[in-house]
């Protein structure tokens, strides 16, 4: 995997073990499906989205970022009763965007991660609504206040989650 340089500062590129690369997204989808039935407030979070952003930013490869996002999104779609592809498309866009941002910016500190996750959550929801309404014709309502609150909650969770997931990083 090539190392990218930006503004004369070396930006680290990381890789992950195969078990980690497979099991962490699977576990995130599992928790997202399991926890809301015990703790309904957990439905406000989107763990698969956070994992997508983390892997995309850490790998700093646009192709791997969009493929990771597509696979995680399609898995999440498969558990819902809606057509497969809604989350797939949204997370593909987010994965590509996050990895593109990771190439250009240092996204290792907590403040950047907070802001970046907030923005990508809003983008994810926007793309989802556009696809659901425009392409599929679903009657999906929008409460942007709720979406902004959800994005804030996800951003806060991301800071803690990324710190934990940092331990699985390996330098490429």
């Amino acid at each position, binding site marked *: 995997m090539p190392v990218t340089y930006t503004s004369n500062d070396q930006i680290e590129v990381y890789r992950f073990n195969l078990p980690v690369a497979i099991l962490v997204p699977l576990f995130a989808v599992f928790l997202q*499906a399991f926890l809301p*039935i015990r703790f309904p407030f957990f439905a406000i979070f989107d763990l698969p989205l956070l994992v997508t952003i983390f892997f995309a930013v850490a790998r700093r490869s646009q192709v791997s970022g969009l493929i990771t996002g597509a696979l995680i999104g399609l898995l*999440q779609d498969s558990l819902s*009763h809606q057509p*497969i*592809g809604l989350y797939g498309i949204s997370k593909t866009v987010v994965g590509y965007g996050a990895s593109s941002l990771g190439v250009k910016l240092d996204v290792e500190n907590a403040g950047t991660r907070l802001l970046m996750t907030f923005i990508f959550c809003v983008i994810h929801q926007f793309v989802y609504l556009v696809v659901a309404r425009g392409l599929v014709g679903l009657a999906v309502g929008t409460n942007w206040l709720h979406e902004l609150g959800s994005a804030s909650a996800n951003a806060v969770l991301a800071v803690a989650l990324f710190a934990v997931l940092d331990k699985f990083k390996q330098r490429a």
Partner: protein
Amino acid sequence: MENLLTRYRNVCILAGVLFAQVLGLAIQVRRTGDESSRLIRVWAVNLITPLEKSIIWMQNGTGGVWQNYIYLRGVRQENRDLKMEIEHLRLERVRLSEDAEQARRLQSLLGFKEQFISKTLAAQVIGSSGSDLSHSVYIDKGSKDGVGQDMAVITAEGIVGKVLRVYGTTSQVLLINDPSSGVGAILEKSRIQGVLRGTSAGQVMLDKILSDETVQPGETLRTSGGDLVFPKGLPIGTVAKVNRTPETFLSVQIKPAANLSKLEEVLVVTQREERVPDVADNGTQRAADILARRLPSVPEKPPETKTTPNTPKFDGATDAAKPKPPAPVKPQENSPNGTVANGIMPIRKEPASKPAQSVGKVSDDPSGQPFTVTKPETAPAQPPPEQDNPR
């Protein structure tokens, strides 16, 4: 061209992946069935649900040990309270059983069909869809347990949803608060019918109620049976809020009786039947028997008793069978029996058991029911004929 593709390789891959997914979406939208994405869903469900099942199993195991053997604080008091509640419920049951018996008898007479839940299957909720915009849950019973598509899913409190997809050992249940769900509903007191729908925010609304109707908050809502999924009469919830809008229909918000956000155990209605309710003392009756009881005829001879004639028994049960003094009845003009001979009106004996007003038209029902009893078409009984004009 090659340089261009190499330069914009990542963008091309992004466009390709997005295009493939849009194409997949288009295929799914075009096909109404579930076949196009069935395989992917089966894989995903088989990947995730075993883990959910195992965690639920462990949770139930440890929770059962704790609840049943260790944490028994307040059990005696709870036992006393429950015993008192049982006494209250017994009294209530006696009163309700009388009403129910009467209602069944009337339904039987009128040939009303009723839907009965004859078989249910208890299931554990093991997971959700994982999406805030898809209100569905997974249960730990599937086609191997007899679960089928479109079966109703309920709890003791009220309805929950219907089975949307069935897999081997799991099933997906679409909750009533999902925008794509629809349940036929009826308000208990005002008998106004509407369609229950969910919203993307997870609320439950009652649609198709005209704005000139009066709906009171707090009124109970039940299933109407019109959707052919839920049997009639199951509790749905209560009216929480009524908003009058300038549109044709009211906006009625419903508070579901079942807690849809914290479901643990549910019942799947695996079998239901539609039949005329049985009356315990009625049994199978022929139309001729009903006719014989209801039409005017010679009263049956009262059963012989060992009591002496000087001590008449005024028991309610035997009083109906006793012959009563005949009353003169003017026959109908078009009646074949209403013959007048020699200017003397024939006197007909009324049956002692049933009054003359209860005579109705008995006819074969084309729907397959043995008979239906309708209101009498003829005029009510005329007063006794005047004797000063015998013709």
